């Protein structure tokens, strides 16, 4: 049976993990390669690197991090942040990423999804989506880390994303992100009902049971979290043990 995936996300700025990661045994808490290795050791099913600066000047340093990680960590590596062209995708894949995550650039230029899928294959195109309730019973898509309302309906957008050949959707709820009250089950259900590609739940994990709940209540195939894992509040083995005890398939 296909296991549900637990995915830690590392935000990287100028070659360092933002805020650092609090792991026993990892001396340089800001070293992304060491942090990724530790997550790999803990049993992370995939690792996401996000370039939060995404400046042209910093790109080389960021890709060095990806390159170095790919030499030591043998689980799928997804890389996002600042990827806005096919050339950026190629460069990132060549550095060792298995998948590329595009978000704002895809909303602003949906053609990028089609081009990426055609050239590199759907399997490596993840479309990240930041969405928020519109107050009228629906959801709207935002760009630039949730700062710009794109006036795009979420459910129409996910259909387009699938139809253009994306291999996966990473759905982040702005309403639940950072609140730590659990994943946005309602939004996830609505999106999973619309598409037949894998959906990763993101934003809102605050306690152990939130992971099992998202897998029991929705068709999300993976759950992503960042700070919860970084600060050692929860470990990946704890999350997996809890899910397993509730009958959810875990690697």
């Amino acid at each position: 049976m296909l296991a549900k995936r637990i995915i830690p996300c590392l935000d990287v700025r100028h070659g360092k993990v933002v805020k650092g990661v609090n792991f026993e045994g990892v001396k340089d808490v800001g070293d992304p390669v060491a942090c990724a290795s530790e997550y790999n050791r803990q049993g992370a099913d995939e690792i996401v690197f996000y370039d939060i600066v995404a400046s042209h000047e910093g790109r080389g340093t960021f890709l060095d991090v990806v390159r170095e990680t790919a030499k030591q960590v043998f689980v799928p590596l997804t890389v996002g942040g600042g990827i806005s062209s096919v050339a950026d995708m190629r460069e990132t894949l060549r550095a060792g990423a298995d998948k590329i995550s595009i978000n704002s650039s895809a909303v602003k230029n949906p053609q990028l999804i089609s081009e990426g899928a055609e050239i590199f294959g759907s399997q490596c195109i993840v479309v990240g989506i930041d969405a928020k309730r519109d107050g009228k019973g629906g959801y709207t898509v935002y760009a630039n880390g949730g700062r710009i309302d794109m006036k795009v309906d979420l459910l129409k957008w996910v259909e387009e994303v699938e139809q253009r050949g994306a291999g996966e959707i990473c759905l982040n709820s702005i309403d639940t992100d950072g609140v730590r009250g659990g994943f946005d089950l309602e939004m996830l259900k609505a999106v999973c009902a619309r598409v037949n590609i894998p959906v990763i739940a993101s934003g809102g994990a605050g306690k152990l049971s939130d992971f099992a709940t998202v897998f029991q209540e929705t068709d999300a195939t993976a759950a992503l979290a960042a700070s919860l894992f970084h600060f050692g509040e929860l470990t990946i083995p704890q999350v997996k043990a809890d899910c397993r005890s509730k009958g959810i398939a875990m690697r």
Partner: protein
Amino acid sequence: MIAVIDYGAGNLFSVCNALRYLNIAHCVTKDAAEIDRADAVILPGVGAFPAAMASLEGTGLVGTIRENAARKPLLGICLGMQMLFERSDENGECKGLGLIPGEVHLIPSKRVIIPHMGWNELVIKQESPLLSGIEMPLYTYFVHSYQAFCDDSNIIAYCDYDGKVPALVTDGKYVFGAQFHPEKSGEKGLMMLRNFERTAI
């Protein structure tokens, strides 16, 4: 020395990263003489079947791969595994290498998400040197929309995705194929690559 066939496959670098990490001597090549000299061959592959077959044919290595597969271990990975079969109907009918009897079609279930993406558990049907020393349960990383249809005698292991998906296949002699990515399947995936190297000694 393992020859990794260079025909533009997307996972070539990941496979080489894993071999390098394991200190397994390898070369990335499209040179027939180098493949002839190698102890074993890896055929990587990501993307669509017809495009990959066309690229492989473009290297002029199809004959070389067939000859080598009759006398030394060959491992096809992901699309490289699918290419070992006789034909696929991905984006139209296309011939494969024909090293293992069988065909490649879309995953037939309408009840599952396509692509089949993530870690799935292998159900072992026969012993294989590739699985030597690997503890169960064994989950490996898959990402594909098409799957092989072949005789049970060619299946070392399958996984369940609302139906039987051949995961590790063989011709019973030198040819092996992994639908999953051993190079992305953590420690156990690395062990399989190590085991593959050992079959060549």
